[in-house]
């Protein structure tokens, strides 16, 4: 528990300073409407998709391919380009098996930078708009976020990782003659540069198949500590940046507190359930320990549940243990993290998701006392609420609809790796992860099929762009209104009461939508397995 407290505590403290720095970088008095911002955003995202699609499609003809990786199938290329453009990094391939170094760096790593920068840029624009300034220029914001925030921090992390043992080489696979005389091919690569931005940009797509469970991606206790903090620090900083840009620091502190509270609740839950041994070993003559299936020993015992919670709270999706092998009720915690998707959330977009819940909370409160709800002094009316609720509903619609379809159809039901309720959870997790733009998986699922590639590709695109574009439009509509003066009936957004309001709207609206599937999957597996 000391380890967990230290990691979260240090990250929270550092985020205060990084948030200040990010505000300094991102703040500008640049004019611009939300419409022009949206247009630039859309054009650039189409280019991101097209360029990465082209690089992946022609990787067999491109340089930096020492191991001669071949062509990928069209559906896998579509899925991968969609996945990295949307900052999801869901991977239906295994890096060391399928991808050339050129694809890894020029398609995937490039998108890890610019897709994360896109999230920060849009949050900045929304914050500026709500703060009463112009929305700005997307390209300026995106480049500032890339060059002055993501690049320097990534460089520092990459250097730290090299010194813990993460490889950074363009030499290909090396053939080892083992002590007992067998041959072992060891895949390597320019991993350190890749992993730094993978962690920092809430990307999560690993260089190697098992992600940060692989000893080359995460060689020891210290690399694990650095990588865990890298997951959460920029999402935390984004909340402070939002506060500074809108000039409402106390409001930001309330939001930060609510997010932290939910994070700590999930952490305690996961750490507790994962300390139980793997159920399959019950009654066997084995020393008792926490569940070690799918875990690496070098990170220590609390490192796996900590990572599992943090990575799914932030839409990162990297893993340092196999989520498929988590105890059933522990597995429910990552799912919950992705259902809510804003207990810090992704870089930039986590705070945007939170705004959706805040506006919903404000609206419900306004209805209860019978006056027009306000947020940051501006009236929240029908127009904004339509946009916000639509953005809110896309997520459950994609998850529940997709899961239902793939559970009854052979193209889904036949791809599961485990039987019964756990197999259902594999399907549920895959759609949840795609829709949350998370990218982690219950990796037993045989997901590199045309059906899975196309379905999750579409879900990722829809669930990325709808909850960015609609809140941007809502902010544009709010920003056009006059600021109404405070009265005695105004709901203040910087109080503990307001914190309780958003906590309530998150739990009642966000979590309860998913209660039935939680019972069908992880809970019934637990009931069937543990209550013998």
């Amino acid at each position, binding site marked *: 528990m000391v380890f967990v407290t230290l990691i979260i505590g240090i990250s929270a403290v550092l985020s205060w300073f990084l948030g200040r720095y990010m505000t300094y970088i991102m703040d500008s008095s640049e004019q611009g409407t939300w419409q022009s911002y949206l247009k630039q955003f859309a054009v650039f995202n189409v280019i991101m998709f097209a360029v990465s699609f082209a690089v992946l499609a022609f990787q067999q003809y491109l340089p930096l391919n020492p191991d001669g990786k071949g062509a990928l199938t069209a559906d896998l290329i579509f899925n991968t380009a969609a996945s990295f453009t949307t900052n999801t990094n869901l991977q239906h391939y295994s890096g060391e098996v399928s991808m050339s170094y050129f694809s890894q760096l020029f398609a995937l790593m490039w998108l890890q930078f610019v897709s994360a920068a896109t999230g920060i840029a849009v949050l900045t624009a929304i914050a500026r708009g709500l703060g009463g300034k112009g929305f700005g220029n997307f390209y300026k914001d995106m480049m500032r976020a890339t060059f002055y925030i993501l690049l320097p921090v990534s460089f520092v992390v990459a250097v730290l990782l090299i010194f813990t043992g993460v490889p950074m080489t363009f030499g290909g696979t090396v053939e080892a003659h083992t002590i007992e005389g067998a041959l072992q091919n060891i895949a390597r690569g320019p991993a350190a540069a890749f992993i730094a931005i993978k962690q920092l940009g809430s990307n999560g797509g690993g260089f190697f198949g098992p992600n940060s469970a692989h000893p080359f991606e995460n060689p020891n206790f210290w690399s694990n500590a650095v990588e865990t903090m890298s997951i959460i620090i920029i999402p935390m900083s984004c909340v402070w940046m939002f506060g500074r840009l809108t000039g409402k620091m106390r409001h930001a502190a309330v939001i930060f507190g609510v997010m932290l509270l939910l994070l700590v609740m999930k952490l305690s839950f996961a750490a507790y359930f994962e300390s139980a041994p793997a159920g399959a070993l019950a009654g066997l003559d084995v*020393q008792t320990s926490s569940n070690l299936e799918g875990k690496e020993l070098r990170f220590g015992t609390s490192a796996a549940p900590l990572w599992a919670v943090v990575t799914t709270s932030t839409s990162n999706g990297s893993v340092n243990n196999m989520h498929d092998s988590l105890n059933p009720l522990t597995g429910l915690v990552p799912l919950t993290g992705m259902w809510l998707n804003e207990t810090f959330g992704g870089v930039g977009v986590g705070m945007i998701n939170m705004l959706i819940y805040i506006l919903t909370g404000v609206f419900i409160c306004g209805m209860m006392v019978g006056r027009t709800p306000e947020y940051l002094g501006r009236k929240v009316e029908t127009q904004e609420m339509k946009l916000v609720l639509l953005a809110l509903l896309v997520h459950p619609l994609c998850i529940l609809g997709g899961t239902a379809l793939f559970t009854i159809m052979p193209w889904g039901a036949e791809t599961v790796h485990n039987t019964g309720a756990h197999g259902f959870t594999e399907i549920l997790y895959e759609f949840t992860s795609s829709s949350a733009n998370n990218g982690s998986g219950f990796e037993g699922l045989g997901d590199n099929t045309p059906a899975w590639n196309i379905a999750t590709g579409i879900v990722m695109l829809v669930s990325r762009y709808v909850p960015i574009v609609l809140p941007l439009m809502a902010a544009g509509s709010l920003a056009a209104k006059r600021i109404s003066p405070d009265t005695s009936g105004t709901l203040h957004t910087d109080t503990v009461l307001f914190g309780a309001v958003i906590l309530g709207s998150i739990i009642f609206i966000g979590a309860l939508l998913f209660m039935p599937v939680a019972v069908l999957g992880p809970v019934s597996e637990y009931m069937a397995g543990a209550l013998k």
Partner: protein
Amino acid sequence: MKSDIIQGVKAAFITMAVCCVLYTGAVYAVGFLAKEKAEGSLIYKDGRVVGSRLIAQNFKGERYFHPRPSAVDYNAAGAGGSNLSPYSKEIRERAEKIIAENGSGLPADMVTASGSGLDPHISLDSAVFQAERVAKARNTDKNRIIAVIDEHTDSYLKIVNVLELNMALDRVE
């Protein structure tokens, strides 16, 4: 519209040049300060690569300490975990097989597959458990083996690197 696209392509080109070429180059250059690590912590013996200190390799012989089970048969060019539910009968059957081969009272890490299938470590308990078999196969005193284990134990995490331990044993003989 045309000018929008040109602006976007320009931005893509600039970000790609900086993030993919300059950044990667700079990190690669730093790698030369820790060349051995940057190349994958490879271990050489008589000029040949025998493995990486970070990557588990399979040891089957009685004379050597065995690593944790691997769901991918220690394939370091296609790593992965078992992805089995902790309640699955496959895990139980694997554990029963390992118990039948090694005896009862095993530490749990000896019967569970790691996440990568390449976990280079075993727990200290597991090393001590295997010490008797190794000592017998090497015709030596168990305490001498334990002494080598102690030298290679991470005292905070209570884990031992299997490849380094086995190479140290060979050197001692």
